[in-house]
């Protein structure tokens, strides 16, 4: 994330979480927190406990974040991509934006249900890399659309059904819809050429051979008690090796929701 992006991110974050922005210019942002974020970011439970006990509202703190390197000397907290503070905020946002149910802002029209899931796939071998998929599944006809978030990012949604519109009940239940998405991912992964995994696996086999040879050479000369110790040690080492080099893929949803779209928008989504 560039410093400018971080500034914009923070501005959006505090605005969305209904904190009052007091100053916002060229890499300096001053906000008054709400109680929840004060509790999270400032970690002062005694203050809040005390203030609640005496029956008062409490005053959330005002913080200043500096993201412009030229202003680093100014009063405030220097914030960058590695700041623990920013990562606290990231984790909070990931938790807050996990589940949703949304309706397209469309008048006098039936709305069809879709299951939208954003998923992180992690490929783990000698090293690790991630990929994100955004998938929408039509809960009536089972059609799947990819890069879904890209397609809907400029639409308007609300958390209540717009006036004079009505929703069509899903035919596919959430669990089986989700299962279909999992099946799709399985096929997607099966269709890939996993060169990274082969490399990792052949390294694993090589190291395993070395390890086995090593312990066998000692086992021959060992007495019963030593043999037992050596076997424990060998199993232990083999376990380390497997953890380190056997290829695996983690599939973990980031967030998901049920979205209702007008037929007009669906035509757009399907193109």
């Amino acid at each position, binding site marked *: 994330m560039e410093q400018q992006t971080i500034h914009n991110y923070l501005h959006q974050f505090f605005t969305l979480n209904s904190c009052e922005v007091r100053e916002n210019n060229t890499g300096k942002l001053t906000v008054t927190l709400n109680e929840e974020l004060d509790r999270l970011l400032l970690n002062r439970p005694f203050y809040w406990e005390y203030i609640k006990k005496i029956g008062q509202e409490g005053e959330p703190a005002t913080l200043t974040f500096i993201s412009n390197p030229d202003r680093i000397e100014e009063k405030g907290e220097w914030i960058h991509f590695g700041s*623990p503070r920013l990562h606290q905020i990231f984790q909070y946002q990931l938790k807050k934006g996990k589940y949703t149910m949304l309706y397209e802002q469309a008048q006098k029209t039936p709305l069809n249900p879709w299951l939208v899931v954003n998923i992180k796939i992690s490929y783990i071998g000698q090293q*690790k890399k991630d*990929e994100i998929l955004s998938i929408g599944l039509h809960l009536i006809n089972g059609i799947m659309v990819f890069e879904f978030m890209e397609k809907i990012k400029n639409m308007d949604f609300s958390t209540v059904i717009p006036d004079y519109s009505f929703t069509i009940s899903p035919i596919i239940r959430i669990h089986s819809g*989700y299962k279909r998405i999992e099946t799709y991912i399985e096929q997607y992964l099966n269709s890939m050429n996993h060169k990274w995994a*082969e490399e990792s696996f052949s390294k694993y086999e090589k190291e395993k051979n070395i390890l086995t040879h*090593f312990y066998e050479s000692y086992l021959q000369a060992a007495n019963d008690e030593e043999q037992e110790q050596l076997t424990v*040690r060998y199993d232990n080492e083999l376990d380390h090796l497997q953890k*380190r080099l056997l290829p695996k893929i983690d*599939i973990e949803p980031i*967030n998901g929701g049920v979205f209702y779209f007008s037929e007009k928008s669906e035509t757009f989504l399907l193109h």
Partner: protein
Amino acid sequence: MVRQILTAGERVMNINYRFDKEFVYEFDKHLDKNGPFCSFDMFHMAYDTAKSLVVPNFEGLQSPQYLPHMEFLDHQLDCAKQVVESMNGRAILADEVGLGKTIEAGLILKEYMIRGLAKKILILVPASLVNQWVKELNEKFFIPAVSQRKSYVWEQCDVVVSSLDTAKRPPHRDIVLEQHYDLMIIDEAHKLKNHKTKNYQFVNSLKKTYCLLLTATPVQNQLSDIFNLVTILKPGYLGSYDEFTKAFGNKRTALKQDEKLKELIQNVMVRNRREDTGVEWTKRNVKTVWINFTEEEQQVYDELDHDLVSSDPFTSITLKRELCSSREACYLSLKKMFEQNVQKYSGHSWSEEIIEKIEQLPHHSKAQKVVDILQNSSEKFIVFTEYRATQYYLQWFLQQHGISSVPFRGGFKRSKKEWMTQLFRNHAQVLVATEAGGEGINLQFCRNMIHYDLPWNPMRLEQRIGRVHRFGQKDDVNIYYLAIKNTIDEHLVSLLYEKIHLFERVIGDLDIILQQLNIPDLEDEIKDIYAESESPGEARIKLENLTAAFQHTTSSEVTHDGTTDYS
């Protein structure tokens, strides 16, 4: 589920697909309760957040972009990359002293944490370095490391720094052995070179996925040192012990001469030398300041050759060295000597006279010289002395001349050391120290150093200089050595220090040369020479021989392959 693939080599490989099972149930609960649900903006922002945290490539380092306040050197980044990409996180980091092994380890640790491959981490370091590690990881790397204090931290905290001695002792031992560590770091790992020790066996039985061993001297005495270190990382990589010694013998030199061994070691060890780093080091200006004793001082010095003490060469040398430092240091030793051996000394006129003469000596010529140097400069100075008594005397003497100073000793507690460093930085012109103060105290804001008296062990000298001449020093460094003519000081300075240029040398070189000459401790060697010599002339010849051996080793090192490196 598991997918089976037949690899190019006709082997069956399994890839484990691990699907999250929680998400859909949680989602269902929300649907049942009709919420709580977030807005589209919140939803979209969470998606963007996840995107910004993605690691898009197997290769390369993510960690530097998380640490914009740090300036990493090329060799540090290369090292971290190499360990992560081609050594799969099991390596010996063996850079020379002062090139930043801790920084490299921090980078690697951060990288594994960012990639989500390491969460539970154990860092074992010498007790004196625990707090330093905790501080650096927190401040430089934003890694929430805690030092081990109570037994419960082992289970509750993810990143724990502890001394090996504590970890291997009950009640900690059993808890530590229970844990599965994603990454383990061991600093000063050369202490694990012997596979028969409790430390070695303890470390070997810990459960760890990735593992870093840090040492500046991967091979100290024999080739088996490196065998034992590698065996912690990759058992069997160098074969069994018998196979290894059969193939390579047990001489240190094999590591340099045997191509096959060199190649094997290169796969598990990164070693950078100062000259490989491409970093421009600031210069060291070394100046020896010669001082003449006053007549009275010289008289007392000569008195120390009296039969009563010269019969024991060690005593005589010690007293002479002390007198070259301060009358106080010498006085205290004499007093103690007389008290401990009343029969020998009491009633002897020499004993009383020498005490009396010392008491009457005016200020020490060296101390006066220090004041001269300090008064001609407005910059900060560190003054090192070998003796506590001299330290007190110097502080008092400087104060008499209106020069502010703070004391520093190896025995100070960490917090006191930091406090003294702070005082020196902000308020005083001089730091009067008796020891280098241990690793980790950085005094780079000062660039002048006076060696008030000479340590006979050049390693100590290098550690002293290393406090100011290291990464972060922006200016050339001025090193003064004070020596008194016609004394024991002179022999040493002219022979060891001037001919061999010990001041300019880096510690890594010296280390290797001493090992090759089979000299475990230079200080002991020199003491032995004096002790075993019948006359000053004989001592001088022996010292010259030692010097010649040094010079010979140095030149053969350089002509061999232009480097003294193993790797």
